[in-house]
Structures are given as structure tokens and as C-alpha cells.
């Protein structure tokens, strides 16, 4: 591979792939070039497979890879970077500024105002109150729920630990008091499914911010549901909430769309939940239950979710309002399969939700 021609072509291809959204770093590109070298530039098939095993790292990459490969080696220029969905401005339209304009506004708020804000319905907040709410959200301190682990840890009492006992005997040269061990606890997985459809518009921004705060403190998977399912765990990994929210807004193509909860829930269970994400997890669904799809499907999927998960908590902002009755078709069919129905329309109820999750 001393000849510059093919090498430039290969690296250029990798570059086009990167622009299309496949995260192939220098190490992968190096592996790709080495793989082509091992196989020889015999034909497009070989280059195709060399690139597919060396440059891709997850199933989502494969479709992009195929597209870029066809474009690049078919002689056509690479397509521009793929940007799915809406711009950050869509999120701003949801009620929260994406860039931190609200940050500079220093709000001198008396304690009583904080109390009022804590209880106020998020949908009825003014822009200044929203900015303040964001700051209050950031100081929530979520505590993860725990479960018993398979792993045992040394303990003062409990079953006898033969390994440590023998080891102590060995060190002492004579039998000593037996050592003990016990099962330890580990954080339990938490899954948040946030409805971002039109009817949830006033709450989606606050709920995603809430998800971001939670994600920084415990192992959690976050998905948005609307007409489709989008995983935003990766996007919410940004430390800065504004950056995280902007990344999530770019990733979610169905902001303010309709709701097909049943289908989105099924996509979650098939693609993630059944494989392990929902098993023994605490699953929190934030949705008002306005279902445009088939309620029977939603009920079936909610039942599946209940069988997989440790606890299913349903958060419906409308529960907090006076005179609420769970009559929407969606909520009515899921209620039998839900452990708790919670409000989550204000900061206070979100804090309550956190307590509930921590106890689950």
C-alpha cells in the first residue's frame, strides 16, 4: 500500500462516512486500510466487507455505510451530512430557549416565590419562571433505586466465605474465626420514556431536562416517544444541559407530532426492553395517554412491559389538575398494567417522582 492512489481513496471514503454520521475514528480507519491490505484491492466486494467490519460499530451504522459506499464507489459524490429531524429551534418553540439566554438573567427570588414556583403547573410558567425552573431542576439530587446483586461482598455476618476464611487460615497458619460474606446491592436500571408529541408540548422540555438531571446521577436509558421511538441517552450525556437538550432536539425527528404510543412502546420492547434494558428495571413513562393509534395494541404492549419491568410508573401531567379522571382511551387501557400513576406537572411532583423511583 505504498501507492498513494488507493490509500487516498480509502481515507476519503472513511471521511465521507464520518460526515454521514458513522463515528469512525483514526484507529478504525487504520484498521480499514490494514484490512484492505490483507484482502487485496481485488474488487468492490472485498473493500465493502473490509470497510463494513472495520468502520462500523453498530447496526445503525450499516444503512449509512451502504449508502455512502454506493455513492462513493459508484462514482457519485458523497451525500451531504445526514441531518435527521428538526433543528434546535423546534425545541425552543416547545417553550424553553435552547441557547442559554435565560442563564444571564439573574433572578432574585424570595423563598416564598420558590415555593409557589415549585407547585405551579409547568404549562403556565412565564419565560422568566421557566429559566428559574431550569436552575431548580439542576439542583435535584436523584438517588438511584437498588437491587440485590449476585456479587457477594465481605461482611460482618451472613454466610461463611470459604475463600477468605481459607486465606486467613493460610496467613495465620491455624484455623481462625470464619469470615463472612453477603450479597451486595447495586443500582437498579431506570428507563425514562418521554412523550414529545403535540399534546405534551408544554411539558416536554422540562421533562427532558429532568431526564438529563437524572441521567447525570444514575444509570438510566432515555427514549422519546411520539410517532416513533428515539433513543436520546447518548445525546443527554453532555454535561451542559443546554448542549444536551440541543443534541436531543437534533436527534428527535417527531417533536410535536402525533402520538402512536402503542407502536413506540412496541419498538422499545422489541429493540431494547426485551433484550435487557427493561428487565428488572424501573420504567417511567411520561405521557398524557392521548393515543391516536389502536388502544388495544397499547394495552397489549403495556402488559408486556409490566411483565418485563420491576416497576412501571406512569407520569401524566394532567393527573395533577383538579377534576382529572383517567378516561382517555390510552390511559384507560394502560392503568391495569401500571404500578403507580403520578402527576409530574410541577417541580414538586417531579421531586416526588424521584423519591418514588428511588424507593422502587
Amino acid at each position, binding site marked *: 500500500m505504498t501507492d498513494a492512489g488507493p490509500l487516498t481513496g480509502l481515507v476519503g471514503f472513511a471521511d465521507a462516512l464520518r460526515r454521514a454520521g458513522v*463515528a469512525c*475514528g483514526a*484507529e*478504525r480507519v487504520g*484498521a480499514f486500510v*490494514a*484490512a484492505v491490505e*490483507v*484482502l487485496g484491492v481485488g474488487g468492490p*466486494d*472485498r473493500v465493502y*466487507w*473490509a470497510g*463494513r*467490519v*472495520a468502520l*462500523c*460499530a*453498530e*447496526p445503525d451504522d*450499516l444503512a449509512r455505510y451502504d449508502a455512502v459506499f454506493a455513492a462513493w464507489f459508484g462514482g457519485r459524490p458523497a451525500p451531504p451530512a445526514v441531518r435527521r429531524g428538526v433543528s434546535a429551534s423546534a425545541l425552543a418553540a416547545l417553550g424553553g430557549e435552547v441557547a442559554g439566554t435565560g442563564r444571564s438573567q439573574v433572578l432574585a427570588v424570595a423563598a416564598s416565590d420558590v415555593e409557589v414556583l415549585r407547585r405551579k403547573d409547568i404549562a403556565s410558567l412565564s419565560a422568566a419562571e421557566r429559566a428559574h425552573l431550569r436552575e431548580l431542576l439542576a439542583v435535584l439530587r436523584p438517588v438511584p433505586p437498588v437491587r440485590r*446483586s*449476585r*456479587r457477594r461482598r465481605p461482611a460482618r455476618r451472613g454466610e461463611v466465605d*470459604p*475463600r477468605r476464611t*481459607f*486465606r486467613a*487460615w*493460610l496467613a495465620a*497458619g491455624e484455623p481462625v474465626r470464619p469470615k463472612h460474606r453477603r450479597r451486595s446491592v447495586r443500582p437498579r436500571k431506570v428507563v425514562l420514556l418521554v412523550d414529545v408529541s403535540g399534546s405534551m408540548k408544554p411539558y416536554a422540555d422540562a421533562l427532558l431536562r429532568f431526564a438529563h438531571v437524572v441521567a447525570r446521577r444514575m444509570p438510566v436509558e432515555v427514549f422519546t416517544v411520539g410517532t416513533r421511538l428515539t433513543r436520546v441517552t447518548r445525546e443527554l450525556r453532555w454535561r451542559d444541559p443546554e448542549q444536551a437538550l440541543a443534541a436531543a432536539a437534533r436527534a428527535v425527528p417527531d417533536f410535536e407530532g402525533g402520538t402512536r404510543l402503542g407502536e413506540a412502546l412496541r419498538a422499545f420492547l*422489541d429493540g431494547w426492553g*426485551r*433484550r*435487557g*434494558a427493561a*428487565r428488572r428495571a424501573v420504567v417511567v413513562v411520561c405521557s398524557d395517554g392521548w393515543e391516536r393509534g389502536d388502544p388495544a395494541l397499547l394495552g*397489549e404492549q403495556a402488559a*408486556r412491559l409490566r411483565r418485563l419491568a420491576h416497576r412501571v410508573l406512569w407520569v401524566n401531567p394532567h393527573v395533577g389538575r383538579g377534576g382529572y379522571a383517567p378516561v382517555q382511551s390510552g390511559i384507560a387501557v394502560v392503568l391495569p398494567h401500571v404500578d403507580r400513576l403520578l402527576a409530574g406537572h410541577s417541580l414538586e411532583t417531579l421531586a416526588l417522582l424521584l423519591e418514588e423511583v428511588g424507593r422502587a
Partner: protein
Amino acid sequence: MTPDDLAARLDHVGYLPDQGVATAAFLAWRMRRPLLCEGEPGTGKTSLALALARALELPLIRLQCHEGIDAAQALYDWDFPRQLLHLRALEAAGPVDVERAEASLYTRRFLLARPLLRALEEAPCVLLVDEVDRADDEFEAFLLEVLGEHAVTIPELGVVRAETPPLVVLTSNRTRELHDALKRRCLYHWLEHPDLAREIAIVRRRLPGVGERLAEQVASTVRRLRTLDLIKPPGVAETLDWAEALLTLGMTTLDPPAAAATLGAVLKYREDVRRALSAGVLDVPPGSTIGG
């Protein structure tokens, strides 16, 4: 050796790879990089490693990952009870020189080699790290170290290094996302369900007693089941189970009563069985031509 040669060898030991699998395995072997296999359950991730070991005539060492797996289960452990017995035996034989007694305790014969250490010691070999997504993510970092260096340091003994690195196959069911650092070290292959002709060939290869017609009918029916919206679409393993079940009953063709009686070999959920029956997949026996 070329990918085609490797494909032929895999074919010879009863694993029928497509071009992608053969090329991925070939590259992993020649580039000495671990191969990370993902794919739907039942697409032959684990059996690829088993077949590679047989095709390359190398021993297979398997590390089954589970939650809470740690170095003592994956790498090595000291055999404390035996060390204790040894010490007792030394004492019984007469006065003991403490230094020498201790040195004699931390020798290779009191070391229990777990799969990773065995793979380094017995290399060249095929190391299968099965369902790596079930292990905790701390374990991944530890695995990375062993896979990257092909060596491990045992404080009491020294470094164990593999002369020829083992051919490592990792499988994952994507129950959680693997760490990027681990993925970066690996070649990646996504396994698909085989196409119809290949699946028929697999059935006939694995179960020589199954006739052409039955194999075709079973494979094409399973294919149609996969297109239904099932909770657990059947994999190749289920196709084989089903064909074997029918073979055991002495069937030579797939008729609806026999299919209904043996459906438990393919579909493991009541909802799926109901859906398959209502979609009429089993009512009309599929035609005897390929693609029917």
C-alpha cells in the same frame, strides 16, 4: 489462505458462512483483532466461534459472561484449600523454613487458570467471550487490557504472555451498549438470518435425515414466520429444532396437523402461536419450489 478458503473450511465442519461472515472471520484471524459479533438471537454468533475452532483445528476456550463476573472467575484464582493442605503436609513432615514454604505456595500448580488465562497459555486457540453485554462495564475495561496486550501480570508469578495471540470472538445481544473503547479494538460484524437457500442447506447439512422437500418447507415456513410481527422471531436454531422434531415424528413433508403439533419447537410465546395460526402460515403447506 483467502476468505474463500476459510469459507470452504467452515463449510467442511458444517457451518455455512456467507461472504460477510467469512471475510470478517478471516480478517480477525489475519489482523489479530478480536471480532465482535452482534445480531438477532439465533443467527449463529456463538456457533461461528465453535466452527472457527474446528475449521482452524484450534482448541476452543469459552468464557460465558454473566452479571458480577470478576477476575477470579475470568482470569485466575489461587487454590486456597490446596495451598492449605500443602502447608499442613509441609508442617507434618518436620520443621518448616517459612520463606521456602511460602515460595512453594505461590507456584503454578496452585494457580487455577480460568478461561482468559488458559487462552493465553494455550494460544494459538479460539477464545469465545460469550454475551459480553451481560458482564458489568467495569469488566469490559479489564477485558480490554487482556485483549490489547495478550498478556496478564500475576503479582506472585510474573507475566503470562501469549506467543501467538488467540483468535477472539466476542458476542453481544445488545442488552446494553458496549463501551466505545472496546468496540474500537474490535472488528465488528452484524449477522443476519441466512437467505432461504442457505438455510435449507444448513438444515440438510446438520440433519442429514431430513429430505429435500421437508427442509424446503420448514425453512420457507420459518421465513414467513419471521415476516410476521412476532415477539420472538425464530432463529436458525429454531429451524433446526423444528426440522428435528418433524424428523423424530417420521414426517417427510410438512402438513398442517404435524406443523401445529410441533409448533412449540419454533414459537415460544402463546401470543406468537396465536398470531401465526391466525395469519394462516401453517394452513397451506408452502410449495415445493424454492422461494415458494
